């Protein structure tokens, strides 16, 4: 009985969508506090904007179509799938009485920035996160091209973000074209874009989503090895690709990593010129270490070293253990020097103790000691 009733509702809704009829808002469950009369208000908007040829002329002479794609809206996150119900035009555009005034907007960007402020009304958490992001800082500094919500998410046709994952990096790439050009050929980018790999980082895995921080700060640099280690020290993840998870530990135990770690402990905002992961492996252009274009491929490594050590000669690059644990096969000299001391130190100290312990016993707990101080005098005089 119940089932049949829902089937009927479904049929009616589907029919209305197919016919391009605005669904009846009264069925939305009242989650929205848009107020009464909103449905008729929307219908009034659609009367003109659904399939309109009209354009809006901005102060600078630029024109934009005022057409509204209802179908795209209905399948957007603010359309039929929205758990709180459809959004009304009013929710974002505000009360916008007809006939519309030409508006005080000099450019389409000005209008977009003003309308963008409405996102915060519902998405306050994301807006809060974004408020000190690198984009918000740039905006505050007067760069009106800095990305705002709708630049990345779209407006009437907002989709669930990150589906498919490649969409994330493609979105960033619309503005960050040079970086995207590097990224798309990198080991991470090519796997994402060509193989839809679910594990490689998109832009946001390293840079964050709404709270994207400035990647040129000392803090970002000093913490970056931990960022890489987030995935590269994850055994489960790396085993899938046969990548060693020892890279972080081997980095920290070598000169560069030790120093960077010490700097971080002392002051995470300290300026540090010692190499972090991306100094050698590249930033957006990271290649697999066996890729001929890899900056860490043996033949290319010396050029990479020279970026910081300009006087380095070819032998210099093998001073770095390349994340290997010294063994009889890899870096045998280091392995055997270490082995020598593993035997030598306990050997020498053991010898010392063998000499000292009987001496101490004789001196402090020996039989002569029990018999009194005078006895001790005799011992030293014995010859």
């Amino acid at each position: 009985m119940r089932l049949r009733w829902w089937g009927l509702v479904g049929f009616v809704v589907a029919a209305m969508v197919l016919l391009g009829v605005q669904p009846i808002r009264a069925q939305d469950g009242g989650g929205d506090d848009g107020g009464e009369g909103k449905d008729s208000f929307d219908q009034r908007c659609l009367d003109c904007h659904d399939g309109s040829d009209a354009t809006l002329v901005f102060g600078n002479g630029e024109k934009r179509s005022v057409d509204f794609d209802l179908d795209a809206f209905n399948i957007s996150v603010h359309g039929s799938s929205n758990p709180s119900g459809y959004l009304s035009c009013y929710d974002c555009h505000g009360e916008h009485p007809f006939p519309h005034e030409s508006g005080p907007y000099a450019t389409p960007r000005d209008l977009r920035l003003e309308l963008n402020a409405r996102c915060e009304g519902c998405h306050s958490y994301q807006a809060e996160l974004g408020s000190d992001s690198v984009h918000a800082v740039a905006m505050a500094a007067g760069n009106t091209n800095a990305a705002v919500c709708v630049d990345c998410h779209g407006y009437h046709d907002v989709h669930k973000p990150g589906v498919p994952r490649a969409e994330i990096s493609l979105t960033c790439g619309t503005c960050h074209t040079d970086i995207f050009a590097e990224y798309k050929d990198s080991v991470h980018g090519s796997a994402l874009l060509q193989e839809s790999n679910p594990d490689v980082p998109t832009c946001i895995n390293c840079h964050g989503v709404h709270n994207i921080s400035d990647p040129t700060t000392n803090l970002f640099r000093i913490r970056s090895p931990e960022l890489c280690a987030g995935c590269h020290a994850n055994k489960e993840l790396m085993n899938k690709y046969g990548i060693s998870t020892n890279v972080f530990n081997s980095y920290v135990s070598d000169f560069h990593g030790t120093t960077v770690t010490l700097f971080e402990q002392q002051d995470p905002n300290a300026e540090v010129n010692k190499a972090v992961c991306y100094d050698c492996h590249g930033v957006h252009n990271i290649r697999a270490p066996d890729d001929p274009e890899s900056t860490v491929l043996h033949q290319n490594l010396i050029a990479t070293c020279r970026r910081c050590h300009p006087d380095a000669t070819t032998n210099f690059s093998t001073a770095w253990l390349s994340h290997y644990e010294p063994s009889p096969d890899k870096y045998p000299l280091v392995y055997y020097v270490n082995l020598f001391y593993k035997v030598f130190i306990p050997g020498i100290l053991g010898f010392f103790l063998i000499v000292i312990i009987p001496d101490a016993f004789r001196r402090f707990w020996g039989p002569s000691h029990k018999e009194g101080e005078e006895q001790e005098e005799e011992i030293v005089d014995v010859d």
Partner: protein
Amino acid sequence: MSTEKSTPESDRKMIFRFRWPERIEHIILLISFIGLASTGLPQKFAQNHLAESMIALLGGIETVRIIHRVFATVLMATGIYHGGSITYKLFVLGQPPYMLPRFSDFTDLIKTMAFNLGLSKKHPRMGRFNFGEKLEYWAVIWGMGVMILTGFMLWNPIATTRFLPGEAIPAAKTAHGNEALLAVLAIIIWHMYNVLVARRNLSIFSGKISREIMEEEHVLELEAIEQGETPQPPPPDIYRKRMKRFVPFAIFMTILLLAGLIWFVTFEQTAITTIPPIY
């Protein structure tokens, strides 16, 4: 000295053992050793929390590295001085090579062990420097050799890899750290036991040693002193003749070695100069 006054043996005869240059040399060695160890071991064990606080206390890793290099320079300069003073003692004053290891040192060790274990009633009769002191002296010589050689490689990695394979650098690093650990543990266990625990022998600071310690450790020298058989300095004319050769040689070697030391510490700048980060 004050400690000796507090012991019942205070009125015993004190015997002269070390002249002031030797005492100063030891103090410089002591200070630079502690300086090097306290700035070096935290670098070896950088991931240890105590090491972290130690480095923070000393003003950060860059400062720690500079302090380490300053003490290293001081110690190397002391080494140069030591070479000069040994040459003077052996070839100008004509002193016997007290520190040269002899077979008797080995038998003295066996005899000491036997005596301590109660297998023998006889304590070995030893000279100015006994086997334990010779062991320490040559350990310092060996240790300084290793530390200077590997320290040079770590200080000047780019220069080193011009003529050695790159692998020499991490090998030098592991040798430097391990040798340091050995040196510090040897000082704590062997040296501290022998000069502070077994008996309080502060003669390297005061210059004087108690007769009691002399009897136990250097009875042969004690007998020689008391019988006036200690090696005498050469007569003035021979002394002057020797000095005529020694002084130019010493000046030449000092200049040469100091130049080498300056070359050492200024050889390469990239290891310490700050190249601005790429990002």
